[in-house]
């Protein structure tokens, strides 16, 4: 290549290893990821980048372009600055893209896989390597490199420059065919690349209103707040329902370290279990008047347990506390553990329980929903949790986990039993109920909803709501326990309303589902 006579020129002299490395790095970045993407994946295999892939590819091209600036004008701070900014943005783009698919099942992803990883993962990796390479190159910068003179390019550097031009020109062709001239732009789900214009599809879908920006989108799910639930029993999705009369009222007779969040009862030991929003676990006697033992969990140790929202007695004398994030801890009362041994698990009263297990429930239908309840079915050896609605979505999902391995066994969205006279209002849904306490007795789940103060009875065999009653005049319920023929409804202020447990409806063959 001939140098223009108008430009000041100096030759690359000895010791300019930094320029050789830069040229090789730019050549590699241009030819391998970007060149392969456009020539092989694009022109040969017909792969068209999605809009996010386009911007990541352009990010790599821009870093290469900065490399050309460095080769011609030296590593001026403004070029280094641009390279760092572009690489940092590129890593963000890669992470944003990986975030859409990174948690899918094994082998799943978007578009094609290359050497065990999808393209967006390689983009993240490439930008990461760029940052490392730039850091290494910066260590080699000397004052003489910053004299501002325009350098003449040697053979390798010219080859790098023209390879860049060829690869970018090919990308211009692909971009014109795939995305079109302005204002058309890349698409979320691009159509296969072709040189034949009859298959070109230029889209304005990304410009469609509303042009509204949000930071976390559907991940911005607020934590459940039962106190904010609508208490009006007349406005529930099932319309006017019969009321359950409160037969007696009582109060927790023990001072807790925080507000109670759930209640459970164990007939075998005649004890109640209470969890609190300050990670407290309390075992009370059968009259709720005296404390048997308690502890406070270190919820930040290893698994983030979040705020306790559900509690249940399991078998073998063990109990479970479930966080609203579906993480859980299993404990067993014990008088043979030392406080020192339990230092890592408990913050207070460290010699009263053994920690058996601490992990997280995985869900499918209930994913992206918090829960506010837990129940145990000894017959089915299963633990249950029920989703609560949020500002993004309202869906009532019952999740069943195996007691043995704490893994999801079943999930269902209850339907209404069409023989019991229940009917949803127009455009209403059971998902509006906010189940804040649940208990299982004889194959029936009793679920108390803080919204509209409604007790739902769900047949776990048929997956149908077989009864619904309201319990007016109670503060926001947070927990539910069954003792004998009664249900104990615990509220956040520690008050307890006792109501008769509705008589279970016998299981019957499944009828057509009415949602």
């Amino acid at each position, binding site marked *: 290549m001939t140098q223009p006579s108008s430009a000041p020129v100096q030759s690359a002299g000895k010791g300019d290893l930094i320029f050789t490395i830069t040229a090789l790095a730019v050549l590699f970045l241009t030819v391998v990821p970007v060149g392969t993407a456009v020539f092989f994946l694009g022109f040969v295999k017909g792969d068209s980048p999605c809009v996010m892939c386009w*911007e990541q590819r*352009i990010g790599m091209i821009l870093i290469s372009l900065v490399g050309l600036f460095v080769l011609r004008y030296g590593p001026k701070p403004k070029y280094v600055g641009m390279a760092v900014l572009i690489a940092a943005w590129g890593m963000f783009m890669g992470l944003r893209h990986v975030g859409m698919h990174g948690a899918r099942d094994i082998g799943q992803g978007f578009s094609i896989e290359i050497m065990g990883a999808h393209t967006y993962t390689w983009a993240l990796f490439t930008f990461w390597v760029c940052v490392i390479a730039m850091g290494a190159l910066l260590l080699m910068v000397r004052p003489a490199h910053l004299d501002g003179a325009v350098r003449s390019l040697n053979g390798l550097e010219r080859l790098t420059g023209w390879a860049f031009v060829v690869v970018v020109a090919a990308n211009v062709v692909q971009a014109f065919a795939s995305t079109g001239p302005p204002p058309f732009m890349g698409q979320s789900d691009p159509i296969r690349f072709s040189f034949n214009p009859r298959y070109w599809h230029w889209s304005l879908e990304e410009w469609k209103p509303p042009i509204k920006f949000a930071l976390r989108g559907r991940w911005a799910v607020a934590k459940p707040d039962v106190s904010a639930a609508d208490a009006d029993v007349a406005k529930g999705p099932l319309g006017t329902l019969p009321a359950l009369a409160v037969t007696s009222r009582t109060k927790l007779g023990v001072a807790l370290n925080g507000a109670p969040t759930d209640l459970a009862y164990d007939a075998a030991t005649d004890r109640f279990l209470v969890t609190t929003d300050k990670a407290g676990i309390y075992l009370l006697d059968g009259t709720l008047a005296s404390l048997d033992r308690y502890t406070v969990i270190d919820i930040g140790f290893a698994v983030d347990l979040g705020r306790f929202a559900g509690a249940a007695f399991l078998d073998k004398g063990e109990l479970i506390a479930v966080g609203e994030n579906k993480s859980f801890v299993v404990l067993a009362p014990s008088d043979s553990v030392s406080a020192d041994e339990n230092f890592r698990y408990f913050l207070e009263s460290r010699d009263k329980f053994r920690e058996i297990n601490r992990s997280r429930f995985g869900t499918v239908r209930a994913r992206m929903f918090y829960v506010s309840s837990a129940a145990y079915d000894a017959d089915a050896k299963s633990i249950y949790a029920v989703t609560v609605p949020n500002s993004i979505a309202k869906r009532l999902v019952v999740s069943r986990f195996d007691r043995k391995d704490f893994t999801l066994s079943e999930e269902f969205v209850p339907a209404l039993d069409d023989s019991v006279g229940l009917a949803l209002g127009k455009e209403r849904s059971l998902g509006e109920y906010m189940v804040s306490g649940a208990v299982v007795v004889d194959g029936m789940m009793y679920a108390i909803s803080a919204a509209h103060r409604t007790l739902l009875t769900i047949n776990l065999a048929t997956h149908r709501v077989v009864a619904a009653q309201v319990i007016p005049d109670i503060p926001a319920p947070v927990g539910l326990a069954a003792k004998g023929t009664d249900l104990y409804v615990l509220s956040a202020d520690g008050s307890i309303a006792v109501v008769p447990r509705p008589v279970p409806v016998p299981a019957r063959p499944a009828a057509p589902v009415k949602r």
Partner: protein
Amino acid sequence: MEFLTLVLILVAALFILRKPEKEQAAFRMLVVSTLLMIFLFSLATRGGLLPGLNF
């Protein structure tokens, strides 16, 4: 819009290689291309700018 971004990049590269005295013009094209990339990516991900992951 990607087409426009890439054309700007191509012209900037040609300036660097063939007309190095147009350093400022080439640099402006680099900056505009970078801003276009950031804008287009943000537009495409406007419903959730941050990665969809637990933080």
